[in-house]
């Protein structure tokens, strides 16, 4: 374990060193290109120009300029960079769990570009994550989407003009069945599934009233009056933007009954659920989900870890896909996020999805759910050159990513990473030695001042609802 940690720590600064120019042409040739949109091309080539895919096809059909940098990928497989539609990595917080509706908080405010897990994911071929608020409350915070441009500032990681999304949560987490109530702490409403529904209905209703207030204001202005603008309320503004279709709902859910509840509730308010997250019992109500137009993001083979997860089946992805639902696989885990392609491979076993259908679950389909499919998610001309070069078939347990690039820039190169480890180890040794030589006197400090005195860290639920105590570094 210690060695593993060391390994990743040593690679931390690596991304910055690996940056290449993205203005040049890059030609990847002699690869098996798995496009995720139009089949697999044996003996294929991809031409990258200005970070975009300029051409893709058989080697003979792809022509590069004389100055193009050529990567000979003989024996290698190329896939689109993997997209995780449900992650909590690279954030300094997970839940604002104090209220049942915290639609005003934004995960984009607390991105941590130095989370080593971002680099671990990159080393596993991932290039984009959807950073979700946790599932502690019925309506959580607004989410963010970042590309894993390791070593670059947050401003460069964020997708420009990314679609806005918000986290909802149903079932045991928001009603706090599994949470550890603290001494003397009163339970927060809601405590039942009916209560969760009520929180959402009430929030939508408040959003409607808020919209009406602003409409009235705009009308008065049109009449030539000079009214005082209504107070801007960031929570209600988020509710209003949901009602107007400007913010997509990504809702944590497990059970069939609550899935149907949410779909109906949203329909009542003229809102579409964009993506159901986890969706363990989605297979039971696939026609209803398809009819609503929602997509589903799932954990392929997790079940039984809590009461509401008992009815999960590994055929879920296949059944929903066959019903016409856009299905994706998500990690919701720092661990699974770094070997994401194995998750897709599982679904070929259960339910006989084709190789390309399985690949789409971790590339094009999550991109569709995040409304980024026009930009990325498959190897097509005009899309971002977010690519992974595998040393073998990506669904084989014996394969591993050798190179991961984002917009034509290499952010992970296994060979360079291995070479660089000695350099970093040397630097570390020198720093330790330097400190040893100048020990200094320990300077007492006062502990960081608390906001209020209490024993408890903020409560966090692990992705699947079990309470954990997360100690921040």
């Amino acid at each position, binding site marked *: 374990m*210690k060695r593993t940690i*060391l390994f990743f*720590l040593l690679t931390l*600064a690596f991304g910055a060193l690996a940056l290449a120019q993205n203005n040049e042409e890059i030609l990847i040739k002699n690869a098996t290109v798995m496009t995720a949109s139009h089949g697999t091309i044996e003996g294929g080539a991809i031409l990258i120009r200005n970070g975009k895919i300029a051409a893709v096809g058989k080697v003979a059909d792809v022509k590069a300029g004389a100055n193009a940098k050529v990567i000979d990928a003989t024996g290698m497989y190329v896939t689109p960079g993997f997209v995780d539609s449900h992650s909590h990595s690279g954030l*300094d*917080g997970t*839940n*604002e*769990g*104090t*209220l049942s509706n*915290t639609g*005003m*908080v*934004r995960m984009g*405010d*607390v*991105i941590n*570009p*130095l989370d080593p897990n971002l680099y671990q994911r990159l080393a596993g071929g991932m290039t984009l994550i959807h950073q979700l608020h946790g599932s502690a409350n019925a309506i959580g*915070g607004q989410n963010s989407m970042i590309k894993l441009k390791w070593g670059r*500032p947050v401003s460069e990681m964020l997708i420009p003009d990314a679609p806005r999304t918000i986290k909802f949560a149903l079932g045991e987490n928001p009603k706090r069945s599994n949470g550890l109530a*603290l*001494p*003397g*702490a*009163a339970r927060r409403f809601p405590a039942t599934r009916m209560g969760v529904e009520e929180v959402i209905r009430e929030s939508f209703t408040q959003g409607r009233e808020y919209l009406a207030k602003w409409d009235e204001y705009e009308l008065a202005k049109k009449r030539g009056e000079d009214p*005082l603008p209504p*107070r*801007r309320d*960031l929570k209600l503004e988020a509710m209003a933007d949901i009602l107007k279709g400007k913010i997509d709902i990504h809702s944590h859910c497990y059970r069939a009954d609550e899935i149907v509840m949410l779909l109906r509730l949203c329909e009542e308010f003229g809102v579409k659920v964009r993506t159901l997250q986890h969706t363990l019992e989605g297979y039971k109500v696939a026609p209803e989900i398809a009819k609503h137009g929602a997509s589903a993001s799932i954990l392929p083979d997790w079940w039984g870890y809590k009461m509401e997860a008992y009815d999960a089946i590994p055929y879920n992805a296949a059944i929903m896909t066959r019903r016409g639902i856009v299905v994706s696989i998500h990690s919701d885990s720092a661990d699974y996020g770094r070997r994401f392609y194995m998750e897709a491979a599982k679904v070929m076993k259960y339910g006989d999805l084709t190789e390309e259908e399985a690949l789409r679950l971790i590339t094009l389909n999550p991109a569709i759910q995040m409304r980024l499919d026009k930009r990325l998610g498959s190897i097509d001309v005009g899309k971002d050159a977010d690519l992974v070069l595998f040393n073998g078939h990506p669904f084989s347990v014996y394969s591993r990513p050798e190179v991961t690039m984002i917009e034509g820039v290499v952010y992970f190169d296994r060979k360079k990473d291995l070479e660089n480890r000695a350099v*970093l180890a040397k*630097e*570390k040794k020198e*720093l*330790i030695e*330097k*400190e*040893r030589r100048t020990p200094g006197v*320990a*300077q*007492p*400090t*006062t*502990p*960081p*001042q*608390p*906001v*209020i*005195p*209490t*024993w*408890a*860290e*903020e*409560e966090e639920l692990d992705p699947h609802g079990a309470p954990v*105590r997360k*100690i*921040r570094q």
Partner: protein
Amino acid sequence: MKRNSLLRLACAAVLTVAAILSVRTGSAQGEAFAIKGGTVVTVTGATIQKGTIVVRNGLIQAVGADVPIPGDARVVDATGMTVYPGLIDAHTTYGVRQDAAPAGGGGGRGGGAPGADPSQFILAQLAAQSAQPSGAGLLPEVSVVDQLQPVTETSFETQRAAGFTTALTAPRTGVFQGQSAIINLGTDAAEKLILKAPVTLNATLGSGRGFGGSYPGSPMGVIAFLRQSFLDAQHYREEWSRYNKNPRGMQRPQVNKSLAALQPVINGEMPLVITANSQREIERAVALADEFKLKLYVSGATQSYMNADWLKSKSVTVLLSLSYPQKPAGLEDPESESLRTLRERADAPKAAAALQKAGVRFAFTSGTLARPADFIANAARAIEAGLPKDEALKAMTIYPAQIFGLAEQLGSIEKGKIANLIVTSGDIFAKDTKVKHVFVDGKYFEVKAEAAPQQRPGGFGGPGGGRGPGGGRPGGAPPSAPPSDAAVSSGAGLAAGSWTLTVASPRGEMKLTANLQQNGEAITGELNLQFGSAPITKGSIKGNEIELEYTLTTPNGQTMNGTLKGKIEGASISGQMGMMGRNSEFTGSKTPKE
């Protein structure tokens, strides 16, 4: 609001009266001193060799090489020594009551701020439904002026011994911590020490109020809360400006003291100080200030060496902490630390030079340093890392004076400025230099050798420690005693008895008692916390090292397990207490038998 402004008025009145008195009477206030023969580092002008400074009525009456010494002046011979302006610490909590918790539920400053017992506060918090948010920690109208404790002769003794005569002091806790003041570190009544209040509004981007508290309880919640507050303040401004322009026929807007207190901040008149140390926290603070066009001072700014040029482009002022990250005590395997951590520790002293080079306006603060004396030693490390020496001196004298709008009164040795002066045995940044004499508001303080700061046991401030009264005796607790005979063997019932422990929990100090019985190496008994009692389920002592496990039962019948590990030295104990997956330092002592 009313109480607040009344107090302000009272303070202003006191200041005015004090000024008049000092001119008229010249008794205690009129005492005159002449500091002669020393090297006078004026900071703003040329350094004077063998200069004389005449101090009268709390002000510098004259300074120069050929200044006559008035007949009534007490002469301080500074031959061979160096005279500097008194040092200014740009962000502290000096003089603030230790127990000054943020105003309690029900809103309003005064609603529980003075004398609030933290444990009572917890109970109140826990009892409160999270759906009924209290204002604790969220009130920008809170002022440090209302939290200052009575000043005694020994208040600020440690600070003066380290060369400090002035500090920005601010409330300790909160998302909005409240409004700060500049105080002189003398021995007058607190009201007389105030040079300026309010100076800044202070805020933090920490993780909020935690579970059991109400919104905001997370880093993103804190930012959302601050954003909404500034939006509300803007709306309040709009509402009142419309009403004031044309009150006839318009419904009167409601007065809100929090939003009123934010007005000077959103109008860019009062700086907002945000404590932020990591690069990304600094970026968040700047983004927030940009969004609302606020005048931002970043306090802490440990990692500002990473983005100094960018801070310059954003016109940010930095109150740079000289509390550098340190190697954790008792680190067994140095390899277990990440390269990044090691780099951050090695690079921290470079921040000042980076800021200076980039042209960022900055001043030094002692940050979380418990011993003011470490301030100078750490400034010397910044000089080693490339900061010009004169800039280092300015960053603790004239720069903070300019930053806080007090350059006419403070920060240099000039005629007419407040007589805050220090006389040192030599160059202030040299290793063996000692502060010999200190003047605060023209009042003379001799620095006794005993006042030299001592190592505090356990590292963290004990009760009353560090920044409060009794600064000359840090920690309030006895300094770490050599192991007494009793500490050598545990057989004698070393642990038995009643102990009072103070735990530096992540969210504040907590007191508890431990009643222990000892039988050989076995320990039994119970811990009493304010919100429940905890029988010891397993306990042992080996040598002087004690290890306990306990189960806490809370008022609502829940149970949870915890640990306590400590070392007993005589009648003192210190160590770590573990609960809910986190360890907190504690210190304590045995209650004498009656």
